[in-house]
């Protein structure tokens, strides 16, 4: 971009306003130049001109100082581009972040009048390079060298300098239009239309607080005053006092121009900010000082701008400066580009400091607070968000409400630590948040209200409307997808469970027994084909009398492996998807896949993955090598579910599969696990297991898994007040229930429990004892399992306790891997929230206990990725092939200072070949054979060949059964 001619300056501004209408407004100046050129300025700023303080920038007042226009256009273009494209800005060694660009554009208005003197510029660029003035011939008397007025001596500030200045002052102004000094003052103050345009901008942008007039040269940043030395002692000694006429403009004498000390301090701080920012570009340091340093002046733009508020109480105070850029008026363009970068950086640095000194720029980001679709009894939080551009402290206070104006329920507030922003040393855009809460009432309710917030420092107030609606608690349809391939007949590795299928039948009922009322459940089985075992049906209350649960439990009990069955997980997933698609009326869909081996037949997961739009959870029984779960991992991760692998199962893993089912159930139904310990207990012992509940918890399940179906355990809960909830109390308490089923018993309670004053927040206990009669009966049943008998005799009956909470506090961890080969890095990322608000800033700790495939254990402390983000991460290596189970534990305080804990299980796995692409039908060499087998089976079954024909074939010597056996044998190969 070589130097702009006068037409290009105007076209550039018009183009910017056209391309960036949201932040760039074209201003047509009211006064055409003497030669009838129309002048333009632009206003860069997102807010209205009346809503933000403004910086006025003028360029090329003196015609020969060409680069002023280029600096102005550059600043305008850079701000528009960087703001719109969300980038920062760099000038040599000086960088501005996008947040700083945003702060300038949103916190200020920049009024940029790039070419004050177009006639003079045109004359300088085409005829006389050193022309300084405008091109007004009025006072020239026809002499070409006497044309023009100095537009920096024409303003109404001590304009009549022979009256106001000491005759010995050497004031740099002339009354002679023909003076070779080119500083003719004009026929009257503001006689020139170009000078009047500057006045018009000041008059019509009343929030202008700063003014930078770009001149050349000298590498200086000049501030008020320009007529005499500054003094802050005598306010009466000022430019408007005629008593001092004839005394101004002489150094070292009595007269000094009054400038309030406070103003001077701020003025110099701003000038220094300009200098420092400019210097960072390439090391050039501009001299900062009062304009009088050069020579005394009259009628100058900067002094006029600053003087206005002294003589007109309605005028804003404008800190005004003259920038003398560069070392020559018209440097070669290559150097001018450097100067443009220098001064642009200086101007932006100045703007940031101006913002720091500015009044608050506060935007209410949330014009209304909307609590949409809040489930019944569930508490939700929403923030009132203010964007604050200022260095000053800002304290937002709720001064009225939140109050309900119509509808049921009430709005509440939550402690909001960031509603008070401290003073900041440097300018940033900060957000202040005030949190409101609403607890769902009844389905269909609509509640409206309002809240009034005040910014304490400025007194500014906002009245913000609030609305909410309540819906039923969301329901989920879940399909259990169960493996019945031949490998399910293999030994389980668990004492008391002959086959893997036995382990599945022990664990899977937990899911059926525990899933909450009104959710749906369905079952699909698969080997190399898939079979719909039970279409999705809505479950009733927990317990043995719900026919849907009974049916599902019956299907699981009857689940039998096909010894000749292969593993086509894709078939099972596809059937589950189709089953869910045919189950309308639920808010969410999920499937829970159980398998014990890798895929050996189509359809493969990769074949059907594009179809799947449900959350998929998976539990895999076996080692990483056996399962090879690359496709399963990808499938679950892609849907928001997760995968659990058991690894090699040993005697101590009795409850492992059940825990995985419970964790999946919590995931499917949006519950969190508060506590998940396990142990063993003998007669005469009492285990009191403490757990914390708090005000964010809406409902709680206390779940006890036992190793026997016999009623060995006595299981009660104690409230924080010490009240005991046993099965009988639960049965008689509204919102509470107790259920005992195969291998599991549990309390389910809505909080607060109406016992005493209402049991909710505080320390609860699960209390376990053992019934000696049933204990002995259980021992007697172990005659055929001597090892297990000895174990129970020595240590007691094993149990696993889980406390699940439906809560406003959520721990949502995920495990990611850089690879699935040994050597991968495993990263745990946990998101911790309360009513959706991040729990961070030291309010919680998160750790992950994990085990390596060789049995050694490790501990990771997760660190918060950014302050107050509520996102915690930590990584570890996975050098050994196998499964890495993680137990993620979070502890902390709620917004109201109550303790909470959360747990979550995760597994990772690496194995040799783990990064190989998962199989698909297209690369399966058996696919053709399989299709052929299907065809033959179809042709030879009873629907094609009738019994009569088969009988005739038999008579003719063709034994179809023998043929079928041959084909089956071939198909199995």
């Amino acid at each position, binding site marked *: *971009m*070589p130097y*702009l001619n006068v037409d290009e300056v105007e076209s550039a501004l018009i183009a910017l306003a056209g391309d960036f209408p949201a932040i760039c407004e074209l201003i047509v100046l009211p006064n055409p130049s003497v030669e009838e050129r129309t002048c333009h300025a632009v206003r860069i700023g997102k807010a209205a001109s009346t809503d933000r303080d403004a910086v006025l920038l003028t360029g090329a007042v003196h015609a020969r100082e060409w680069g002023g226009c280029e600096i102005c256009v550059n600043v305008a273009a*850079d701000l528009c581009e960087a703001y719109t494209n969300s980038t920062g800005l760099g000038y040599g060694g000086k960088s501005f972040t996008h947040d700083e660009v945003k702060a300038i554009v949103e916190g200020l208005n920049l009024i940029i009048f790039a070419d004050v003197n177009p006639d003079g510029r045109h004359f300088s660029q085409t005829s006389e390079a050193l022309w300084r003035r405008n091109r007004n011939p009025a006072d020239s008397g026809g002499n070409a060298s006497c044309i023009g007025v100095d537009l920096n001596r024409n303003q109404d500030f001590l304009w009549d300098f022979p009256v106001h200045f000491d005759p010995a002052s*050497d004031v740099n102004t002339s009354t002679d239009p023909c003076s070779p000094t080119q500083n003719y003052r004009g026929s009257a103050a503001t006689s020139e239309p170009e000078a009047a345009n500057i006045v018009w901008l000041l008059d019509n942008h009343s929030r202008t607080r700063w003014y930078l007039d770009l001149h050349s*040269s000298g590498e200086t940043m000049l501030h008020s005053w320009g007529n005499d030395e500054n003094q802050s002692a005598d306010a009466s000694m000022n430019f408007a006092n005629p008593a001092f006429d004839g005394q101004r403009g002489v150094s070292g004498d009595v007269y000094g121009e009054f400038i309030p000390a406070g103003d001077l301090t701020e003025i110099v701080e701003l000038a220094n900010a300009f200098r420092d920012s400019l210097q960072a570009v390439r090391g050039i340091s501009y001299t900062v000082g009062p304009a009088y340093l050069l020579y005394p002046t009259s009628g100058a733009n900067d002094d006029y701008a600053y003087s206005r508020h002294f003589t007109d109480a309605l005028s804003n105070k404008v800190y005004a400066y*003259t920038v003398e850029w560069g070392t020559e008026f018209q440097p070669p363009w290559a150097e001018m580009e450097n100067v443009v970068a220098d001064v*642009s950086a200086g101007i932006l640095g100045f703007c940031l400091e101006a913002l720091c000194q500015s009044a608050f720029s506060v935007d209410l980001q949330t014009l209304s607070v909307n609590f949409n679709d809040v489930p019944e009894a569930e508490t939700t939080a929403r923030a009132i968000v203010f964007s604050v551009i200022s260095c000053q402290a800002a304290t937002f206070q709720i001064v009225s409400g939140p109050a309900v104006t119509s509808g049921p329920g009430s709005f509440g507030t939550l402690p909001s630590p960031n509603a008070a922003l401290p003073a900041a040393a440097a300018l940033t855009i900060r957000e202040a948040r005030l949190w409101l809460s609403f607890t769902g009432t009844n389905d269909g309710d609509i509640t409206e209200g309002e809240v009034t917030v005040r910014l304490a420092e400025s007194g500014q107030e906002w009245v913000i409307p609030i609305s909410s609606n309540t819906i039923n608690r969301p329901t989920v349809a879940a399909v259990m997808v169960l493996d019945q391939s031949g490998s399910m007949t293999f030994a389980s590795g668990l004492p008391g469970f002959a086959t893997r299928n036995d382990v599945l039948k022990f664990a899977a009922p937990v899911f059926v027994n525990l899933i909450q009322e009104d959710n749906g459940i369905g079952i699909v089985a698969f080997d190399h084909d898939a079979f719909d075992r039970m279409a999705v049906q809505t479950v009733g209350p927990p317990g043995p009398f719900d026919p849907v649960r009974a049916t599902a439990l019956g299907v699981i009990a009857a689940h039998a492996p096909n010894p000749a069955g292969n593993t086509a997980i894709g078939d099972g997933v596809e059937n589950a998807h189709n089953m869910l698609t045919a189950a309308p009326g639920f808010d969410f869909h999920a499937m829970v896949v159980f398998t014990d081996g890798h895929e050996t037949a189509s359809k493969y997961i990769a074949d059907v993955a594009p179809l799947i739009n449900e959350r998929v959870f998976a539990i895999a029984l076996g080692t990483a090598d056996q399962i090879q779960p690359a496709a399963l991992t990808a499938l679950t991760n892609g849907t928001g579910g997760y995968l659990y692998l058991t690894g090699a199962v040993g005697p101590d893993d009795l409850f492992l599969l059940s825990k995985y089912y419970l964790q999946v159930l919590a995931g499917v139904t949006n519950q969190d696990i508060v506590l998940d310990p396990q142990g063993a207990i003998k007669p005469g012992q009492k285990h009191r297991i403490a757990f914390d509940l708090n005000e964010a918890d809406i409902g709680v399940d206390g779940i006890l898994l036992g190793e026997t179906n016999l009623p060995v355990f006595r299981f009660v809960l104690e409230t924080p007040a010490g009240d005991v909830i046993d099965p009988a109390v639960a049965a008689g308490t509204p919102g509470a229930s107790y259920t005992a089923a195969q291998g599991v018993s549990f309390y389910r309670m809505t909080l607060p429990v109406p016992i005493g004053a209402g049991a909710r927040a505080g320390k609860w206990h699960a209390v376990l004892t053992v019934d000696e009669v049933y204990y002995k009966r259980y021992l007697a049943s172990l005659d055929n399992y001597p090892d297990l008998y000895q174990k129970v005799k020595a240590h007691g009956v094993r149990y696993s306790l889980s406390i699940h909470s439906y809560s406003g506090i959520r721990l949502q961890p995920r495990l990611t891997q850089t690879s699935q080969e040994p050597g991968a890095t495993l990263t745990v990322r946990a998101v911790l929230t309360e009513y959706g608000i991040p729990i961070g800033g030291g309010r919680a700790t998160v750790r992950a206990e994990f085990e390596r495939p060789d049995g050694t254990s490790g501990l990771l402390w997760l660190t918060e990725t950014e302050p107050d983000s509520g996102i915690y991460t930590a990584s570890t290596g996975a050098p050994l092939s196998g499964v890495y189970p993680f137990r993620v534990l979070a502890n902390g305080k709620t917004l109201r200072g109550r303790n909470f804990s959360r747990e979550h299980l995760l597994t990772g796995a690496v194995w040799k070949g783990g990064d190989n692409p998962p199989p698909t039908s297209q690369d399966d060499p058996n696919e053709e054979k399989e299709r052929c087998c299907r065809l033959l089976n179809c042709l030879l079954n009873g629907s094609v060949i009738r019994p009569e024909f088969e009988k005739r074939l038999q008579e003719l010597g063709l034994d179809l059964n023998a043929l079928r056996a041959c084909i089956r044998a071939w198909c199995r190969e």
Partner: protein
Amino acid sequence: MREILRTEELDLNCGGARQTPAGEWEVEAFTSPETAQRLQKAGHRVEIDEKFEDRAAARRSEVGRGDRFQKGRTRPRGLGKKE
């Protein structure tokens, strides 16, 4: 320097007179050959920029021709690095 500025009608650049590190005062001024000669005769050191016109012509050649922004249909690009 004060005396020169008072008695001679010099067209100064906006930066005015400045003091060199050696303590001398200097000023960049735009004036006639006659004035320059008079100052030299009065004993002041005057350096005349003989190549000013050449430079001015060179700068004029760096001024845009026509209207690169086509009356506002094409916008200018800022020099700052967008990062």
